[in-house]
């Protein structure tokens, strides 16, 4: 039994290797991009539109609404990053109903890469939002003594993001694998359903946490002194 799809190596040439994680990621990317391109190829601007267009519009506007609810101004600016995070993680979890498929998010490498993306995106959005000085100053809040703790917090929350997603996705796949060997009929189906739910919840949590970090970084120093918003969910 493989703990991670990284270990399922299909092709290798020196440092380069093609493992199941990358392959399934490409497959997901292909499905997402081709599907989006096919649907958005002929978008209607009138009152009558296709159900697929309705689905996409509902998804996009729901993500925008969530971003807006977190207090981020101009949500369209963060839509591409946060929306893709959610859609990728959610589709990776949804596809786990396909036999033979292993979600790429069950690989710590993938979740680490996503967490690194968040780690890089937060300061970028923060600097774009309040300038370099303003962003760096936020590390000295509320007092300069807190600088090392803030830095540790940055790293630790990135680590937490990566490990949380990996643990949940991997455990879901592992549980199903173990149960298949014990009770092969009804119970794995129930657990697969639970795994789907867990995957959707994790996608939501990951995206919301990233949004919260970005929101904290883009807020001005005056806003930072105000009481913090809702506490990030812990899982």
């Amino acid at each position: 039994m493989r703990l991670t799809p990284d270990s399922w190596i299909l092709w290798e040439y020196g440092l380069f290797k093609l493992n199941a994680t990358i392959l399934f990621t490409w497959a997901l990317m292909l499905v997402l991009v081709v599907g989006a391109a096919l649907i958005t190829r002929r978008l209607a601007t009138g009152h009558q539109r296709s159900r697929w267009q309705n689905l996409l519009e509902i998804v996009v506007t729901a993500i925008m609404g969530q971003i807006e609810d977190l207090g981020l101004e101009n949500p369209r600016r963060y839509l591409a990053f946060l929306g893709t995070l959610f859609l990728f993680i959610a589709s990776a979890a949804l596809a786990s109903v396909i036999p033979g498929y292993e979600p790429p998010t069950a690989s710590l490498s993938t979740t680490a890469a996503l967490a690194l993306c968040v780690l890089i995106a937060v300061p970028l959005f923060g600097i774009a939002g309040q300038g370099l000085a303003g962003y760096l100053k936020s590390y000295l809040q509320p007092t300069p003594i807190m600088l090392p703790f803030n830095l540790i917090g940055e790293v630790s929350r990135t680590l937490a993001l990566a490990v949380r997603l990996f643990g949940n996705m991997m455990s879901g796949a592992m549980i199903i694998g173990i149960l298949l060997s014990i009770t092969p009929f009804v119970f794995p189906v129930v657990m697969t359903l639970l795994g789907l739910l867990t995957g959707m919840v994790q996608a939501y949590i990951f995206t919301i946490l990233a949004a919260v970090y970005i929101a904290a970084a883009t807020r001005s120093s005056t806003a930072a002194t105000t009481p913090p918003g809702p506490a990030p969910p812990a899982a």
Partner: protein
Amino acid sequence: MPIDWFTVGAQLLNFIILVWLMKRFLYQPVLNAIAAREHKIAAELAAAAASQAKAQQQQQEFEQKNLGFEQQRDSLLRQATDAAKAEGERLLAEGRQAADAASAVRATALQRDSDLLHAEIVRHTQQQVLAIARRVLADLADVSLEQQLCAVFIQRLHGLDATALATLGNALKATSAADPALLRSAFDLPAQQQAAIQAALEERFGQPVALKVETAPELIGGLELSAQGQKLAWTIADYLDQLSLALSPGADGEAGA
């Protein structure tokens, strides 16, 4: 559980590419479509509001025009009614006048017919009376009617009162051979009667009288002497005139009264 750093790098790159692709193929087109629809709906709403405003304006204009038309119609109707009334009165007055005129013409015609009938009756009666009188006189006397008439005329001459006699005498005095007194008779007066009347005149007035004798059938019977505007007459026409008066409707009315 080791982290495969090559896979991490590849997934990082994959994710960045996916972000770009999704932005290119999903978010932008969908958001553009939503924005286009919102714009379209806003434009439609604005157009609808404009149409509504225009419709309201047109409705107001229509109502104003309608009001104007109604007022104009009422005014025209009033004028037409007044004109029709005036025309009716005029026509009625004309009709009345025409009726009056027709009535007058009819009355005139009736009067004329009545007069003609009356004259005819008078003429016929006179002739009948004359014929009766002639026959009666002829039956009663052995002298002719003409003689009798002359006798009556002479008798009347003698019966004149003094004033009339003086007036007539003065008038006869002024007569001469050139301007003689005129003796009119309904019939051809025989020479014997002419001489008798001449003698009676000269005897009554004591002077010679120039006399011219004329026959006038309209006198029917009798004699009439006229000189210088003065006249002495005894004719059946006088009696018949009195008969005519008695026969006229006015006389009847008076008689009835």
